[in-house]
């Protein structure tokens, strides 16, 4: 487990030193959210109604931008070759890198989401639920995204391809993320949707690294 | 001092400006100290700037 945390620590350190990637994802999130009112018109009641949806979609798009970072740099500079000869199974290598991605991108995006809610006139009562769903939902974003990142590591035009491959995988997260926020306003409360969202994240944490490792083994050939 | 019904908004505004401005100043001072320390560490190890070396 020593080498697992060594890898996580190294990735966190790299993310801090090369801060640009996180900043770009956050800036992109901010810009996409503020483009929505420009397109829809400044009607605050309308914006408040669709705020959760806008925030979730923008969050997914921003996360998408940062996904190729998970494996690409390590593939290009030969690090991946060496990681594959470690005592750590490739599945855990993928877990460590997805975890680092969640810590450096998923959490900052989740923290920014409620701030952007202000721009969309999001109902104050929805804030705790929004924060809850983004925190519970973003692990799925990182761990499912790792699959796409591993699949497209050697591909030409990897970035565009990545979007095509990963966005369908995000559909369940998106649906239950939004419905947890809007269900909370209704009589039933957010219970069921929120639990399903948590289940999706847990499944992603388990299955994502397995699929990503399988893809990486093929890429290493 | 009575700032009326919206006192909280006024205080938060001033506090936010204070926090961001002191944060900026703190960052600038810290960064300056860091660069000076790096420069000193390099000079202590006998590495000199080309321009100062040629001037002497």
């Amino acid at each position, binding site marked *: 487990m020593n080498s697992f945390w060594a890898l996580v620590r190294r990735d966190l350190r790299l993310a801090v030193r090369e*801060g*640009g990637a996180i*900043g*770009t994802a956050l*800036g992109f999130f*901010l*810009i996409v959210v*503020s483009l929505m*009112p*420009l397109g829809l*018109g*400044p009607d*605050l009641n309308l914006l408040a109604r669709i705020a959760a949806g806008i925030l979730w979609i923008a969050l997914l798009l921003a996360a998408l931008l940062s996904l190729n970072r998970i494996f690409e740099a390590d593939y290009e500079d030969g690090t991946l070759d060496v990681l594959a000869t470690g005592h750590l199974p490739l599945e855990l290598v993928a877990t460590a890198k997805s975890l680092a991605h969640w810590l450096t991108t998923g959490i900052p995006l989740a923290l920014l989401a409620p701030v952007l809610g*202000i*721009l969309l*006139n999001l109902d104050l009562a929805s804030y705790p639920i929004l924060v809850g769903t983004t925190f519970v939902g973003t692990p799925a974003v990182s761990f499912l995204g790792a699959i796409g990142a591993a699949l497209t590591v050697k591909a030409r035009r990897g970035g565009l391809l990545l979007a095509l491959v990963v966005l369908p995988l995000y559909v369940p997260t998106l649906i239950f993320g939004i419905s947890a926020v809007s269900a909370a306003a209704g009589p039933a409360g957010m219970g069921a949707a929120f639990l399903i969202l948590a289940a999706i994240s847990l499944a992603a944490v388990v299955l994502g690294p397995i699929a990503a490792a399988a893809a990486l083994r093929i890429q290493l050939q | *001092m*009575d*700032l*009326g*019904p*919206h*006192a909280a*908004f*006024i205080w*938060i*505004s*001033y506090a*936010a*400006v204070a926090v*961001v*401005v002191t944060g*900026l*100043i703190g960052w*600038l*001072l810290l*960064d*300056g100290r860091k*660069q*000076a320390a*790096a*420069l000193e560490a*390099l000079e202590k*190890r006998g*590495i*000199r*700037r*080309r*321009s100062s070396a040629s001037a002497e």
Partner: protein
Amino acid sequence: MQTLTQQLANPTRFMDLSARVLPWVAGIAAALIVYGLYLSFFDSPADYQQGETVRIMYIHVPCAWLSMMVYGLIAVSSFGLLVFRHPLADVSAKAAAPIGAAFTFLALLTGSLWGKPMWGTYWVWDARLTSVLILFFLYLGLIALRAAFEDESAGAKLTAVLALVGVTILPIIKFSVNWWNTLHQPSTDFTATVDPSMRWPLLVMALGFTLLFFAMHLKAMRNEVLRRRVKAMRTQAVAGRDRLATQPAE
């Protein structure tokens, strides 16, 4: 003025000069802001319309003013880099960007804290707010673009191009947003129509903030000059301190 900029072209002279000027600028800025704070809280009346909330204006307006002035400074510096290749122009542009972004952020934040009691909402998509938000994005773009290049001089020139493009696009944004949204009343020009009893504290604060910016900018430029020296020395040192490369000479 020409001779001053020429003199400043030598970084060593800039470091000497700025070290002497900086304490004064910072000191006067601090004094003005303290005086301005006193005025804005104890020596100015509440507005007959806005009530006490008008006091937010005394920090909001200086921040908003700085958000635009700093962008202007970056644009001039960028021009100086691209056209005159002034060695400190890029240092100036790079140092100003994060400070400008911070003041733009504060202008947005204090504006929205003023808006909640006045308009009943933290944010409206009105022309002025939207264009300031876009100005904030431009700042972020400048910082991000520069950070994306390993070759610093290439990154500097490309960032300068973006800064100049931003200058030309800003008025267009302002106009287009005005047309896009005519729901909201146009924001009033405070400095012109404001009552003298409020104009004085506003003026003191604006001057204090401007000097505060210049103090921070000078400090940031000094840091940047030092950072570049460290980098140059390291580059030089890496060849010199390589045990294997120096071995044959020993």
